[in-house]
């Protein structure tokens, strides 16, 4: 899926499956940097805490192997700066390198401006081989730039009025009805290119 849409948002309440989906989408990428602010994405990934180590690891990548990085720079640099470092490292990577940003409300507050590196990834992600997958609890708390530049958004079952309003406006009443009747872990996905679609729970990709 991420091969088609380059910036994907996952919106839903806690435990609805959005982080699981973001994780699955990231694992399907050969090279990625998962910005981990809550110590939950270290499984199967190389854990890195230091910007220098992050850049060196990305620079040293060669061949067809997977490079899955769990980036925990937020612990010393703060969540936003950690996200900026991930964007800088990914944009300097010679090839496709995805970025995962879980709980963007904490990581990228609405009141703050993006750094140049982050803005480049968000605006140009689909052109410069840096896909971005973000998650949020409520659509209303997501930075307008992230929301406006998303190629696709997945909405998990929730009572988020703002999400309902957004779905009704963008995907129409049928999509809203489908959204309101969602089962647990199911979601609807909406993309301006392909329209809306009701989706079953996502599965983790098989280990290669």
């Amino acid at each position, binding site marked *: 899926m991420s091969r088609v849409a380059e910036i994907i948002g996952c919106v839903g309440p806690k435990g609805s499956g959005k982080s699981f989906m973001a994780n699955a989408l990231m694992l399907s990428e050969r090279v990625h940097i998962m910005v981990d602010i809550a110590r939950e994405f270290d499984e199967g990934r190389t854990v890195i805490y230091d*910007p*220098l180590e992050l850049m060196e690891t990305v620079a040293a990548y060669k061949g067809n192997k997977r490079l899955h990085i769990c980036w925990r720079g937020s612990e010393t640099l703060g969540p936003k*700066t950690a996200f900026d470092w991930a964007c*800088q490292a990914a944009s*300097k990577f010679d090839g496709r390198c995805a970025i995962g940003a879980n709980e963007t409300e904490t990581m990228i507050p609405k009141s703050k401006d993006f*750094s140049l*590196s982050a803005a480049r990834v968000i605006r140009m992600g689909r052109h410069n081989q840096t896909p971005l997958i973000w998650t949020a609890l409520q659509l209303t708390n997501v930075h307008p730039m992230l929301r406006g530049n998303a190629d696709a958004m997945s909405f998990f079952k929730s009572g988020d009025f703002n999400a309902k309003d957004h779905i009704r406006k963008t995907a129409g009443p049928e999509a809203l009805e489908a959204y309101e009747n969602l089962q647990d872990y199911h979601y609807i996905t909406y993309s301006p290119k392909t329209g809306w679609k009701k989706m079953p729970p996502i599965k983790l990709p098989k280990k290669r």
Partner: protein
Amino acid sequence: MKPLTLQPDDLDGMSMTDAIETIEDAYTAPGEAEMPEGEENGAIEPDALNGMAAAMIAASFINPILERAKIDPYSQEETVMVGNGLQGVLDLYPSISASPATIAWTGLVMALGVTAGPRYMKFKAMKADAVENSQTENRTPPNPEHDTGVEI
């Protein structure tokens, strides 16, 4: 290692190799927050040890002298003086490009100057008083026979 002050945007337009070099430089370049090597892990350098040993030896010489001169080494006046001297050395420390041993020796000489100078003067004054007292005593020696009391 000092905290990284470099921002991701500072690396814009650089190649990956240049970016890595810039981060390395940011970590190693001298700056305000930089600590002398070895102190980060609590280790003390041999030079600093030499300095400390010198200070301890000097202190072991100073104390007997002070005791002999019967000067209170902990009087308020002198504590303030020594404190000021040390503060001066500490203030100068960041701008001095010398080894810790040199700084320790310089500090020691200054401390000696500050503490020993006034003490020497005090010692001389006390000695002069003592000489004067003894001379006075010699001139009017006490004669108990003349002071036995009033005749009854």
